[in-house]
């Protein structure tokens, strides 16, 4: 095992221990609730990054598949009876795989177009799915919404199972990203991001590579949607297919650092608690939307590369400075200044 591998695995183990242990130490429901949302956005952002961060193709339609996952679990509850307690969680991988396969034809059409058009077409898909949720009344109950059975968890630690489920999907996502980044697929995706024509010229099957990344990303997203639906026990078209959820995940990825392993998670851990706090303070008015937009602007305009890449280059510069010994004259000048 190389040093880098060991370091990443160590970081992963430490992260799992600290974040996983958190709800067993802290019991206050509202804090664990924020924890659930933080992990949810971290998982969504990681999934978004897996496709958009690595290929450079920005998708704005992720919320469609989040909603599809939520509705699939809700409809499964209504028609098949997938049990109560922890049992519905075991159905999640099926939900993820199903939604991911169902999304492939759409992705194939969308990927025939290039970057800007692709972003718009995926956004269109979002509105198509929202329309379907409104209109397919017999399965989704339209605007009335879909009720899921209340989970039978103990009142005291009601949020904990959802917290752990979100964490599990996040860890799965991080694991997939890590494997992909070290694999040939990861190299292909980066080649596509840098220069797609050249990548194609080199014999990389660009469409297949993009579709695989897309499939993985959508499967994760749909699973998160499923957990979210079971957690809230009530979904309706505007809440399940919400452009704000998606744009939140994108914002967190940008804040943490696109194309990095931990960036999206870091972005979510910074933004979600802050967002929940402002929501609590300004909840009644729509003012939080303005604040959200302002944060978004600041991140995009001042920190377009994200925290992690900026930090990394900053550290590298610091190390460089330490290695090359400076003449004492400069130090004296500094002391005077």
């Amino acid at each position, binding site marked *: 095992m190389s040093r880098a591998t060991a370091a990443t695995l160590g970081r992963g183990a430490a992260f799992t221990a600290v974040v996983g242990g958190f709800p067993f130490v802290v019991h206050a429901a509202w804090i664990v609730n924020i924890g659930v949302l933080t992990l949810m956005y971290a998982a969504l952002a990681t999934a978004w990054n897996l496709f958009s961060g690595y290929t450079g193709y920005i998708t704005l339609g992720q919320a469609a598949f989040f909603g599809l996952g939520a509705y699939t679990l809700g409809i499964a509850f209504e028609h098949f009876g997938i049990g109560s307690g922890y049992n519905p969680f075991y159905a999640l991988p099926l939900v993820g795989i199903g939604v991911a396969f169902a999304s492939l034809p759409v992705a194939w059409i969308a990927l025939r177009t*290039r970057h*800007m058009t692709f*972003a*718009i*077409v995926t956004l269109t898909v979002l509105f198509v799915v929202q329309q379907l949720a*409104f209109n397919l009344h017999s399965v989704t109950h339209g605007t009335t919404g879909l009720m899921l059975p209340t989970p039978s968890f103990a009142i005291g630690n009601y949020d904990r199972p959802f917290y752990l489920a979100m964490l599990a999907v996040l860890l799965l996502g991080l694991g997939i990203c890590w494997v992909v980044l070290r694999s040939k697929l990861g190299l292909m995706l980066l080649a596509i991001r840098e220069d797609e024509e050249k990548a194609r010229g080199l014999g990389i099957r660009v469409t297949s590579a993009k579709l695989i990344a897309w499939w993985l990303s959508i499967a994760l997203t749909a699973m998160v949607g499923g957990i979210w639906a079971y957690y809230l026990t009530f979904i309706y078209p505007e809440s399940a297919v919400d452009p704000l959820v998606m744009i939140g995940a994108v914002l967190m990825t940008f804040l943490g650092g696109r194309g990095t392993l931990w960036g999206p998670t870091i972005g979510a851990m910074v933004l979600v608690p802050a967002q929940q706090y402002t929501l609590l303070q300004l909840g009644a008015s729509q003012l*939080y939307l*303005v604040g959200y937009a302002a944060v978004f*602007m600041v991140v995009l305009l001042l920190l*377009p590369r994200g925290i992690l890449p900026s930090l990394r280059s900053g550290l590298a510069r610091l190390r460089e400075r330490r290695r090359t010994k400076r003449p004492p004259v400069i130090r004296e000048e500094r002391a005077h200044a």
Partner: protein
Amino acid sequence: MHQVVQAVILGLLIGGVYALMASGLTLVFGIMKVINVAQGALVILAAYLSYALFSHLHVDPFLSILIVTPAMFVLGVTVQLVFVRSLRGPDAPELSLLVTWALALGIEGVLSVIFNTTYRVSNPSYADRSWDLFGYQVSVVRAFAFLASAILLGLLSLLLTRSRFGRAVRATVQNPTAATLLGVDANRVQTLSFGLGVSLAAAAGAVYGVIYPFNPGSHYDLISRLLSIVVLGGLGSLGGAVVAALAMGVIQAVVAVEFSPTWSAFSFFVVLLTFLLLRPQGIFGVRERTL
């Protein structure tokens, strides 16, 4: 048959207004490769401005175009200078997509704080009147809306083909580097055309506020339609945007009367996806290449 013809007339009238909104979007993309996701929110903002002028100062909504459009031009120029211009590097187009999205959220938030989320509509005295043309009903406001849009689109095309500024714009669309070498001030062209795109949204917004009820959240519905229109027409193509907008109006109106109104918006998305399957670059678009 009568019903279908009636629907086609209605669809064309509505399509004209969408053509006006979409023309600004596609023009801005053609010049600076920026998709202004805030176009829908800017339309709604203009609709509110026109509504405020109408309800407080009794300015006719169609006359308010003359006030709202210059005001929003200034806003557009400011937005370009403050937010859009500072984006550089190879990711700039994608970043601009997100920056303008943030702008849309900001506008939605401000409007919700000021006007709350009640649906509004500007209701001039002639709002319910309609003409009878060979047995077909044509509502007066919709006819005015179409006329206003057609006139403005005509003025836009005159501006682009007959003026010095228009030549500079078209040169920049065709080849930005060559245009700069020939002495076109690219920064100036970009700023002014962004302002122009926003003022087209403004004019359309004043009209929109008369024919549809709106609230701050209406911009999601608008932008999804507008983006579909410009993609169907071919990104950057004005003619394509007009054709696609009229097509969307007609398809939706016909589906609404022949099938069901709930599926009318959906039908257009299906047309779009099917069309992209055959022709990914849209009706008049050129194939986008990675640079």
